């Protein structure tokens, strides 16, 4: 038993060191992405000794308790082992409570992902969605609306007269408030490298925060099965750029937008386009 314990400690130490060397998705292009990667790393490190222990027990049982000849009788009854059971329950409880404390501390931090309790806006963050964590960054918050429709995302920049664009550009190290909505059915806005994934529902302003930390491109795709071209509802042209490059880009977009801006509705938290059914 002691020998097994020593082997488990050694293998666990090796496993933890290996787990610490891995890069965890969604990597580090935003503060929120870094938070998610750190959480994944913590979970993996904690799970590694448990995983190794379980595998060792399976192998040990398979090797030392194997039957070499066919028998039709039951084995001897298992009466339990009190110290092992106490240790098992205690270690599991400590791990789970530790993770609960980490989770509660994150959720109660001052910069949670979504605005809460504002009329017409989404409240809370449902399971499976990410984008939370500290806002961080410098400068004033940039407000960007993500508009989903079958089958493309467009973006409106509220701080720049509601200019609408076909790609998402974000300035480096500036906190961004994303307002995610839809013009038709349910979609899901997933900017993978930024660590943001938010439901896009018609009539709902779903608010998330992100602070880009690295320049470069990122992907945007729909993560909710939404019809024929769902698999193509993606754009790899998302860019995190410096503030000066962003200023240049948004000025160009505003000039382009002038040709259609007069007939595009004013910026609003969400839209109810008509007709929902085409006549005819």
């Amino acid at each position, binding site marked *: 038993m002691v020998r097994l314990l020593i082997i488990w400690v050694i293998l666990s130490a090796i496993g933890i060191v290996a787990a610490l060397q891995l890069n965890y998705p969604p990597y580090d292009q935003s503060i929120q992405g870094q938070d998610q990667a750190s959480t994944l790393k913590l979970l993996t490190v904690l799970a590694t000794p448990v995983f190794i222990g379980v595998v060792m027990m399976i192998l040990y049982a398979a090797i030392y308790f194997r039957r070499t000849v066919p028998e039709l009788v039951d084995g001897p009854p298992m009466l339990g082992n009190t110290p092992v059971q106490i240790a098992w329950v205690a270690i599991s409880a400590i791990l789970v409570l530790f993770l609960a404390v980490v989770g509660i501390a994150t959720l109660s931090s001052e910069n949670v992902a979504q605005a809460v309790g504002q009329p017409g806006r989404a409240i809370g963050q449902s399971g499976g969605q990410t984008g939370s964590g500290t806002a961080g960054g410098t400068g004033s918050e940039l407000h960007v609306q993500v*508009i989903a*429709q079958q089958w493309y995302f*467009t973006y409106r920049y509220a701080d720049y007269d509601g200019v*609408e664009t076909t790609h998402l550009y974000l300035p480096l190290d500036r906190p961004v408030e994303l307002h995610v909505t839809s*013009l038709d059915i349910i979609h899901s806005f997933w900017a993978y490298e930024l660590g943001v994934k938010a439901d896009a529902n018609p009539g709902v302003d779903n608010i998330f925060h992100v602070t880009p930390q690295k320049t470069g491109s990122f992907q945007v795709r729909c993560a909710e099965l939404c019809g*024929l*071209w769902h698999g193509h509802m993606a754009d790899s042209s998302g860019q995190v750029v410096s503030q000066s490059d962003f200023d240049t880009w948004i000025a160009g977009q505003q000039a382009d937008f002038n040709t259609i801006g007069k007939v595009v*509705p004013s910026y609003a938290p969400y839209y109810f386009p008509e*007709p929902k059914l*085409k006549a005819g």
Partner: protein
Amino acid sequence: MLRRVSLVAAGVVIVVIAIVAFVGLFMLRQPGPLAGTTTKLHLETVAALSDAVEWPRPNDPHPDWVGYLPTTTWHVPANSTIQVQIDQEDGASGLRNPFWGKVFGIEGGTMHVKYFDDKGNPQEGDMDSIDPTMAAHTFAIPDLGVFVPLLGVGDTAPPGTQNIITFSFKTKGPGIYRWQCFVPCAAGTLFGNGGPMSTIGYMGGELIVT
């Protein structure tokens, strides 16, 4: 007992055959691609396939569906300029997102449109956008950044009129690029995006770049 089992088995077989027939004949059936690789696309858009003038499709299972003709799958060369002419015969039904009333991603930034004005007089000119409420369809290849709104035929235009829209765009490297219409033009379907908007061969297809 044997008779009951046989009846159940026969029923199951009939249902399976019906499902396969439905999927095969109506869900997956689509026109084949244009023969050969081309740098010129000449297309027709109609309110109902049965109204097609230039490329009738008499055996189509959905004669009352809106569609592009003669097909929606085209082979084009990589890194080339593709010239497009669309003979647009459908009336306007409007864009859900007015933003798509603007032209994006084509050569010169404008399309050339021959149409009839409010008084029924023939007009033509270069346009970089149209009134979003006057859009009948769009020709959009998002991965190439191409978005072109197609002006609907006005009520005052002579019967059987076409708006003729011409423009050109450049392809990128080899690949399959989806294209679609952004006007919710599928009459009678939820949000106008069912039926022909959700079936390849009508208001969406593939640009196969080789």
